[in-house]
């Protein structure tokens, strides 16, 4: 498998999806250049690389762009196979892909609605979110997780890598919710445990340290 020589990541300190890509690259021991994009004033170079969606993260490998975090994560896993983010068995793989799709299709859009709404409308969406989050926990514990501190077992895998950064985003969202918890260890104890475990791994801490320089004042 030919691996690219030059890897560039366009991202933003504000985007949870970018952290997923940092973690994947660092976990695989891949050297890369990082470019922090000002999302209110996107650079020409960046727009050339992702003209379709104009979003971060965008990974550029030997000058060729890849967009959409889930697509990027799978590309990284297939290009640098160690350590693997996916199980070997095709049926187990399909379960991981199903729940990854569930997160992006069902959970993520609700977080955008929560952020933009208020009062009673917001309370309703928060309820919807909590139901979806519980469904996610039940589904993952039944179909993906069997043992070990991470969703994928003894080592973190794709779902850990997606949910971990989402956790940070959810805690940030909670700040504007007047005491309501989105991440409640009484309602979703397993997700809380897995996210907590994930937050302790070296690549997460190294990325957080690296990104401090880009944090808004």
């Amino acid at each position: 498998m030919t691996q690219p020589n030059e890897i560039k990541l366009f991202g933003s300190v504000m985007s949870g999806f970018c952290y997923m890509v940092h973690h994947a690259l660092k976990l695989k021991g891949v050297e890369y250049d990082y470019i922090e994009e000002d999302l209110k004033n996107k650079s020409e170079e960046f727009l050339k690389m992702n003209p379709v969606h104009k979003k971060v993260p965008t990974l550029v490998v030997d000058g060729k762009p890849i967009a959409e975090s889930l697509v990027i994560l799978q590309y990284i896993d297939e290009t640098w196979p160690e350590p693997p983010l996916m199980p070997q068995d095709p049926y187990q793989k399909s379960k991981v892909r199903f729940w990854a799709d569930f997160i992006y299709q069902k959970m993520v859009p609700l977080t955008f609605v929560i952020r933009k709404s208020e009062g009673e409308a917001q309370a309703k969406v928060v309820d919807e979110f909590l139901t979806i989050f519980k469904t996610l926990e039940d589904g993952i514990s039944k179909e993906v997780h069997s043992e070990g501190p991470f969703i994928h077992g003894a080592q973190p895998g794709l779902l850990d890598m997606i949910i971990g950064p989402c956790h940070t985003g959810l805690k940030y969202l909670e700040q504007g919710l007047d005491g309501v918890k989105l991440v409640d260890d009484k309602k979703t104890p397993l997700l809380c445990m897995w996210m907590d475990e994930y937050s302790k791994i070296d690549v997460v801490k190294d990325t957080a340290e690296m990104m401090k320089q880009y944090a808004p004042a």
Partner: protein
Amino acid sequence: MGERELKLLGTWVSPYVIRVRVVLNQKGLKYEYFEQDLTNKSELLLKYNPIHKKVPVLIDNDQPVCESLVILQYIDEAWSKTGPSVLPTDPYERAMARFWAVYIDDKVFLASAGILKATTEEAKAEKIIETMAGLELLEETFKKCSKGKPFFGGDTIGFLDVTLGSCLVWLKATEKVSELTLLDGNKFPKLVKWTEQFLSADCVKEVMPKVEKVEEYINKTLKPKWAAAATSSK
């Protein structure tokens, strides 16, 4: 080695189902097909897809796989030595296939459905522009992926071929119902030529509904359903 029992829950009109059937056909896989009534969901559907309650659902020896793009990748990996590959082997080309498949479903197909759903001329015009912009990008993508060969997948039908191809009859029915041209041979010559190649393939002909039937479905079932929903939500 025991016989593997494959079942597919689907509806005749759903592009998400059609794409799975094309790939199963191309791989030469035998399966039992169960047509579903989505207005009165069967116990089978609720049992094997409790989360989304949607079609398609592939059931492999009693183990369900849901979501069409997940199913396509599952078939490719579980029967990797049978028939042509669905996804390319190169990781960058696989990334392109995955990216454009989601684009087709989320942007192009949804926009074209929006043409049918629009209740004002303004809204309809907006959706037409969106659909055409998507098709323009796909014309460029086709040139890059096919590298002069007949399909997005090269010599054989692949991931992007079935994802976009399964929407073709819907696009053609939308053209007839809304009296417009989307698959314009002058604007998208390569794509239109590809549609002819795709629709004439044996693995496709068997499972692709007739445009007239989809047209009838849009006029007699979908549009009244959308109108009723709009009235009841006022």
